[in-house]
Each structure stands twice: as structure tokens, then as C-alpha cells.
């Protein structure tokens, strides 16, 4: 029996699906984070050059990866909203932006705290750090642009254009350590292999999945709030248990 995926593009159809998925991703994120932290702090050895401070890697690298990936996903949904005018696509892009900004902030913050003991400075205007800071400003700009436009459909289109234009920054961030001489080190993990010790790599990858699961749960939870905000006058919303409970009726 073929499953009709297009049915899920309706906010009314996707709302309960998102609600069912959130607990699985949230619990998965908690379990993976527990395993990742155990690997990172209990199993992975002390680095012979950096000592213990390298353990910031277990949150710095996953958040940096997600900051870039979430931006591309946000631009993808924005492009769908722009091209096809689908409501859920615009809502999805809207839901991703704050979590993407949060991941970018974590990447910058943890990188700064890692940089002080290893490079001797919290910040340097090198290509990797500057382009990541520009990514944070892009996220904040998209959030601010949406707030400034009253009509949600117009806001979807304007934010989609800005996010698509901003995609050019993603390869700049990723390849900046190759294209320019930067203080930031090159990639330790590549498709062809890794220069990291096995347990360090395992801890980092498990934490990456934890961050990934957390981001999905947070985005889906925010998406449900956005659906309620933007579809609040639809009859199907009035029938939802949480809306009936908020109205004082039987939940």
C-alpha cells in the first residue's frame, strides 16, 4: 500500500505526526548525550598536547556541523515555500531558524573557550571564525526580518530569499580552512578517514547524533507552536485537545 507523502505537507496532517515524533527524538537525544558524555569524559584519553581542554570538542564540533546543516535545511524549506507556496514549508523554515542560531552561538562560544588555552586568544578575525559569525548574523537577520513583516506568507517569501542568498556562506565556512591561512585547524574528520583517536572520534560522533536528535525535537516542537499560531482560526485547530484544554473545556 503506497503511502501518500503529499498528505503530510498539510499543517493539519503533519501536526499530530510531529507530536508523535517529538518524544522519540527527545528521549533519543538524552540517551545519546549520556553515552557521548560517558565516552568523552570516561573513556577517551587525555590529549598529549592539549590536556583535558580538548574535551570541548564533544560539543563544539557537533554544534558547528549542525549550525551549517540546519541553515541548508532552512534554505531548502524556504525554497520550497518560495517555489510552491506550501504553507508547511514556510513554517518549517521559520521553526529551524532559532535552533540554527542557537547551534551557531554554541559553536562560537565553545570555540572561543577552546581557543584561549590552545591559541592564546578568545577570538581572531580569521576566515573560519568570521564566516561562522556571519552565519549567526544571517540567522538573527532572518528571525528579525520575519518579526518585521506582519503577513506570514510575505514573511515566508522574504526570509526564503535571504536564506537562499545566505547559502553561499556555507561552503565559505566549510572550506575556509583550506582556502586561507587560518588560526583554526583543518578538518580532523573526512569522508576518507579521521586523524582522531578512536574513542575520541566515537564520542564526538555519538554527541553529533545527540545534537541532531535534539535539534529535530526542538524544531518539531516549535513547528507545532507555529502551526497553532498561524492556523489558529481553522476549525481543525479548535478541535485539538490542547486547545480545548486552554479554552477550559475537556482536554
Amino acid at each position: 500500500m503506497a503511502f501518500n507523502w503529499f498528505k503530510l505537507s498539510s499543517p493539519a496532517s503533519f501536526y499530530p505526526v510531529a507530536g508523535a515524533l517529538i518524544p522519540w527524538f527527545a528521549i533519543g537525544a538524552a540517551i545519546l548525550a549520556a553515552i557521548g558524555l560517558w565516552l568523552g569524559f570516561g573513556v577517551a584519553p587525555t590529549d598529549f598536547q592539549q590536556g583535558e581542554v580538548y574535551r570541548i570538542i564533544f560539543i563544539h564540533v557537533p554544534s558547528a556541523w549542525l549550525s551549517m546543516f540546519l541553515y541548508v535545511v532552512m534554505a531548502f524549506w524556504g525554497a520550497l515555500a518560495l517555489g510552491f507556496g506550501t504553507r508547511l514549508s514556510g513554517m518549517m523554515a521559520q521553526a529551524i531558524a532559532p535552533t540554527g542560531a542557537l547551534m551557531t552561538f554554541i559553536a562560537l562560544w565553545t570555540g572561543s573557550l577552546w581557543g584561549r588555552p590552545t591559541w592564546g586568544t578568545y577570538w581572531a578575525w580569521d576566515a573560519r571564525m568570521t564566516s561562522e559569525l556571519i552565519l549567526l548574523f544571517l540567522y538573527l537577520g532572518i528571525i528579525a526580518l520575519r518579526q518585521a513583516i506582519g503577513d506570514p506568507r510575505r514573511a515566508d517569501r522574504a526570509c526564503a530569499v535571504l536564506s537562499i542568498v545566505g547559502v553561499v556562506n556555507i561552503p565559505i565556512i566549510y572550506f575556509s580552512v583550506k582556502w586561507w591561512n587560518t588560526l583554526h585547524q583543518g578538518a580532523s574528520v573526512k569522508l576518507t578517514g579521521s586523524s582522531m583517536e578512536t574513542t575520541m572520534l566515537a564520542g564526538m560522533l555519538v554527541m553529533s547524533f545527540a545534537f541532531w536528535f535534539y535539534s529535530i525535537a526542538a524544531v518539531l516542537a516549535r513547528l507545532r507552536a507555529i502551526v497553532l499560531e498561524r492556523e489558529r482560526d481553522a476549525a481543525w485547530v479548535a478541535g485539538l485537545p490542547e486547545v480545548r484544554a486552554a479554552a477550559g473545556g475537556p482536554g
Partner: protein
Amino acid sequence: MNHWHFILGAYGVTLLVVVVEVLAVRARRRAAARTAAASAPAPGARPGTSVRGA
């Protein structure tokens, strides 16, 4: 050369911002449900229809 204060600063702030995001999303959803309840269409409205912009 342990620098545990840098590690605590990194993990502590990460935990803090994650908790803030979770609480903010929960509060937003509750507020959205209250707003939706306040602007619910009259009983008997056709399913899937919107009274806004009609």
C-alpha cells in the same frame, strides 16, 4: 594544563541555552494554544475552513 574552568564554561553555557530554548518553546506553544482557543471558530463551522480573511 587541565583548564577545567574552560570546559565547565563551555558545557555549562550549552546546557543553559538548551534549557532556555526548551522552556521558550513550551511557553510559546502554551501561549499559541491559548490564543487559538480564544479565536476558535463558532461550533458548526466546516472543518478545515478559516474565519480569518474570509
